């Protein structure tokens, strides 16, 4: 492999990590409260509110049912408004974060749902406020499941970020398309795919490890 190609690969990897890292962070920041709200506003939950629940639920569903590649194109005006351009690594972060937020929301909602109702009931019986139930019971108890879910979200974002390459988003996907596909450089194609596979493996392994360390329910 030429030094030039190697440098290209490294910078593409850095781009991917940057895109995935920043968009993951944004998606977590918005997705976590979104997931909490989705759960606690449900019927029979501690902050039951059918209107809020249905409204947020349909927004989440609409975003999630739009294919990412379409969403990316649809969001071009928004991206331009926020970043100033719709091309490049930074620009790709906008659609990535917007697509991942509802996903994280659902993942968090699912993790919180797994918390035993009895434990919540016990906390309410102790006089816990809804906020205390969320902060002291729901989130801490669901943490291992949330970590697993967030890992899944990051891996999803790695996949999405490669797609972002298709509309000039930069990163490993961009490298694979421009060199591997358009210039028939099969070696570049395979190399990129190999790096992506390694990246996904690393994330999954790390996520599983952290979740296992966090669990104390005898399932580890």
């Amino acid at each position, binding site marked *: 492999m030429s030094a030039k190609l190697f440098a290209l690969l490294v910078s593409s990897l850095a781009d991917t990590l940057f895109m995935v890292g920043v968009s993951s962070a944004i998606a977590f920041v918005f997705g976590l409260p979104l997931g909490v709200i989705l759960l606690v506003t449900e019927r029979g939950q501690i902050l039951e509110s059918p209107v809020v629940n249905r409204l947020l639920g349909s927004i989440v569903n609409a975003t999630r049912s739009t294919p990412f590649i379409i969403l990316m194109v649809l969001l071009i005006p928004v991206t331009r408004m926020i970043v100033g351009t719709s091309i490049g690594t930074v620009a790709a972060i906008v659609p990535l974060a917007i697509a991942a937020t509802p996903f994280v929301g659902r993942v968090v909602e699912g993790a919180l749902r797994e918390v*035993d109702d*009895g*434990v919540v*009931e*016990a*906390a*309410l*019986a*102790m*006089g*816990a*406020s809804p906020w*205390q139930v969320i902060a*002291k*019971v729901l989130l*801490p*108890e669901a*943490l*291992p499941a949330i970590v697993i879910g967030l890992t899944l979200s990051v891996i999803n974002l790695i996949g999405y970020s490669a797609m972002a390459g298709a509309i000039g988003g930069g990163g490993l996907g961009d490298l694979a398309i421009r060199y591997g596909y358009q210039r028939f450089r099969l070696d570049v194609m395979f190399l990129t795919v190999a790096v992506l596979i390694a990246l996904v493996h690393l994330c999954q392994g790390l996520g599983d490890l952290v979740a296992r360390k*966090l*669990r*104390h*329910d*005898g399932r580890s």
Partner: protein
Amino acid sequence: MAISLQGITKIFGQGPRALKALDGIDLEVPEGTIFGIIGSSGAGKSTLVRCVNLLERPTSGTVCVGGVDFTSLSEGELREARKKVGMIFQSFNLLARRTVFGNVALPLELAGWKKEEIAPRVEELLDLVGLTVKRDVYPSQLSGGQKQRVGIARALANHPDVLLSDEATSALDPMTTQSILELLRNINEKLGLTILLITHEMNVIKEICHNVAVIEKGRIVEQGAVLDVFTDPREETTRDLLGEIIGVDLPPTFGGLDFSREPVAGGDLVIQLRFFGNVAAEPVMSDLVRRFDVDVNILTAHIDHIRNVPYGTLVVGLSGDEARRQAALEHLRALDLKMEVVGYVRQALCPAR
């Protein structure tokens, strides 16, 4: 503190699918007593105990704890009030990701205790329930009985006025049940804590309760002091629930002899004696034989205890001269026990003399 429930009704759902889980429950739990509510599953027990701390809000009726009407409190006031009502559960409901210490500390954190106050209080509670060595262990590493001990320590943490127990021993084996019941009785005696518990096990009532209420289809069908209800159950439901404890069903025959409710010429009397307290220790039967020269044949017997008070049921055949038998009956009626002529058998139960 005393708990007073008045006219508690709970209806789930609306319209034709509405389900009346509780139907006009009145209940007075005197301060410092252990009050047991017993009923078969689906009788409304769980709903009832949840109505006390308003985890389930009654459709109508009032709940007073220590004179405060919980049903009239605002959300914030209710949260404060709940901090003084401990609760333990059948499934323990411990936080899996907190250690034993962390679980017991939770209600104190919620009540805004300072860290340096929490630690000594938790240590004290762990000592009370005998789990000091398990301080830093997670619930998954505990046995059922140990988990319930953590549950009890947690419920007692914030110095509650009353303790609610929702089938706290139903998931435990008989030996562990016994030790948990002893712990509850200890707490009641040591702290003077009022305990309201629900259960489907008569044994639990028998071991620790002062008073009992029998619930069926959302209504209280019978209530009173445990000894009274156990020795003189008035309702069919109570008798059914008590069956295993009293253990005396009269069979149609005794040793092949036909049993009759009507007097039989020349037959033997069958009497049922129910006694409790000191009488149980006295030699009533041998006394009878000596003083009245009658023959006594024990047909069935069952002796047990309710909260350490001996209590028994005895069914005996009485044969001999009619006058002497009547004298013997007179004597028994005068004693501090419940005597009932339940029937007759057609032939002499005792060998003819």
